[in-house]
């Protein structure tokens, strides 16, 4: 999700730098007041830790692996302000020294992942984990969901930033100057990958680390959970199943208000039918600064729309009249499909390996 240079217009980059700046200032002030002389070493080491975490391959269900940003872990351990500073520093080092993410887009990347990500993660962790003991399973679920929600919020913001580029910036001939896909493509394209692979990687990383710290070093979790009841050291905690986490994930998918912003037809995304419909033609003319659309659909468009009828046209099954419901269902269906396919492929490969080994003679 690290946006490189060249995908966003300088105007968008400037706006996002300006949006990120006050958060950096406030975060720096708060952390300085809280930690005083300890701030510099703590932020440095934690930023370095976040940087290294971004390179870990997290094994996902189905046999694939994914990368986590670590914003869920950072927010749970450091709180929102420390987390946004540490992740921003890690992102800046990535952009400056390793070419991951652009320098002009650093403001955008920080705003999406470090700032909004940390705030969302903190909010989810506080709400879900409220009042739970430090060693409660609910805290594991809360951290996992916090990571999942944070990464998806960040991806959603990035997809909106991509999606508005072709609406606002094109050259004289009409060719988009920066990221070329409109909202209706950018949002699903970004979200499907993040609701599944990247989201689950973040969920496993954050939830798993909290579960580990509960067993080995619960004091590290106390900073962001001052309301947690005192630890009962005599009680032995048995590891419980991760089922609540998966249920929470399913609930989150249902609640995702994905694509609601993109309801209606985006500029330049007219179908062949729209060009024939008088009402739609009038709408196109008004939004195109008085330029009337061609009377007949271009040959290429007509041909394309014949060849490629997507299984889910306009991301909504025909029998659903409400575009919002259809959109959310399509998103869930899309994410479910990806999970299903990866699980199936993983199972297939697992079976093949088993077959291979059973047919080999055992010495």
């Amino acid at each position, binding site marked *: 999700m690290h946006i490189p240079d060249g995908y966003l217009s300088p105007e968008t980059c400037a706006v996002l730098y300006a949006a990120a700046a006050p958060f950096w200032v406030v975060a720096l002030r708060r952390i300085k007041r809280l930690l005083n002389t300890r701030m*510099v070493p703590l932020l*440095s080491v934690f930023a370095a830790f976040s940087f290294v975490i971004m390179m870990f391959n997290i094994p996902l269900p189905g046999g694939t692996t994914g990368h986590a940003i670590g914003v869920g872990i950072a927010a749970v351990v450091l709180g929102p302000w420390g987390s946004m500073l540490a992740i921003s520093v890690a992102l800046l080092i990535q952009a400056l020294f390793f070419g991951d993410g652009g320098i002009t887009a650093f403001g955008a990347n920080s705003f999406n992942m470090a700032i909004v990500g940390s705030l969302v993660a903190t909010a989810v962790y506080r709400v879900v984990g409220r009042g739970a003991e430090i060693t409660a399973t609910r805290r594991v679920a809360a951290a996992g969901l916090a990571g999942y929600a944070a990464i998806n919020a960040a991806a959603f913001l990035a997809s909106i930033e991509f999606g508005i580029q072709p609406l606002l910036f094109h050259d004289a001939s009409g060719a988009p100057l920066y990221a070329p896909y409109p909202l209706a493509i950018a949002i699903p394209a970004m979200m499907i990958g993040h609701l599944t692979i990247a989201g689950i990687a973040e969920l496993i990383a954050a939830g798993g680390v909290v579960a580990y710290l509960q067993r080995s070093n619960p004091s590290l979790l106390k900073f962001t959970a001052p309301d947690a009841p005192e630890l009962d050291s005599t009680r032995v905690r048995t590891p419980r199943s991760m089922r609540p986490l998966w249920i929470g994930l399913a609930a989150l998918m249902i609640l995702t208000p994905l694509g609601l912003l993109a309801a209606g037809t985006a500029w330049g995304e007219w179908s062949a039918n729209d060009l024939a419909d008088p009402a739609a033609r009038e709408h196109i003319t008004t939004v195109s600064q008085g330029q009337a659309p061609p009377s007949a659909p271009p040959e290429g468009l007509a041909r394309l729309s014949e060849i490629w009828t997507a299984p889910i046209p306009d991301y909504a099954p025909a029998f659903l009249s409400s575009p919002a419901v259809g959109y959310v269902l399509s998103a869930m269906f899309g994410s479910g499909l990806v999970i299903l396919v990866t699980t199936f492929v993983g199972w297939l490969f697992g079976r093949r390996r088993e077959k291979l080994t059973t047919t080999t003679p055992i010495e």
Partner: protein
Amino acid sequence: MNKTTSAKSRRHSGTFVERTLTGLVRKTERALFAEEIARADGLLQRLDPRVKIVGLLSLVVTVTLSRNLFTILSVFALGVILAVLSKVPVRELALRIWLSALFFTGAIAVPVLFITAGEPLLRIPLIGWTITAQGLTSALYLTSRVEATATLSILLVLCTSWSSVLKGLRVLHVPVVFVVILGMTYRYIFVILETARDMFEARRSRLVGRLDGRERRHIAAGSIGVLLTKSFYLHHEVFLAMQSRGFRGEVYVLDEFAMHSRDWLALAGFAVLVGAAVWLGRQESLQTLLNLS
């Protein structure tokens, strides 16, 4: 344990532990490669870091500002010339930067060729899809911009030692405390990278049985947890070490840079190039030169 089981376990446990290990090693190598080039005696290496930061970053901004392909490609060519004059191996640049950017952004840009409305340019035989002039232009905008900006920003770190880059950031009014945090972060990245590498190597050498998905996730999350705990101890030790040397919360950076006449000359050169590129980039008439629409 029989032979087949051990072969199987190697394959299975290998996947994520080994992939992570390779990633960690590659990151370290890349940083070492950069430090090596930064010590070479080339054009950019001889300049004051502040001039390089201001000059190269301004060129990156002009690439994103430009509204025609001619300017973007010219600045890209300028980046390549600067790389050659600074003894950056072009082969390495092509493999590490250009190819990876081309694969990533190129893959993203392919559908644009067909879905952008505009004048038809070429019809692919058999499937009958039409490439539009606007689609092709848009795909070229995206890829050339990404290539040009990636080249310029990598030149900065390849031709400057990291400590100078960080100190040079002061000219962009980055607060001193951030510069110090960035410097320490960069330093401790390698400490933590090494710790992580040792952990994964130790884990790999002890793995013989087959791990199922649940166990693999446990190991991954556990490793992150251990690393987090170690990082906390590390920060505490660093803090005590700083305190014992008199650290009271205020940070200072030694400003040892001095501008020589060639730095002023280079700054003027960058100013002229950036000015010319900004002016050229605004000329929509230049589109006819390279644009296909």
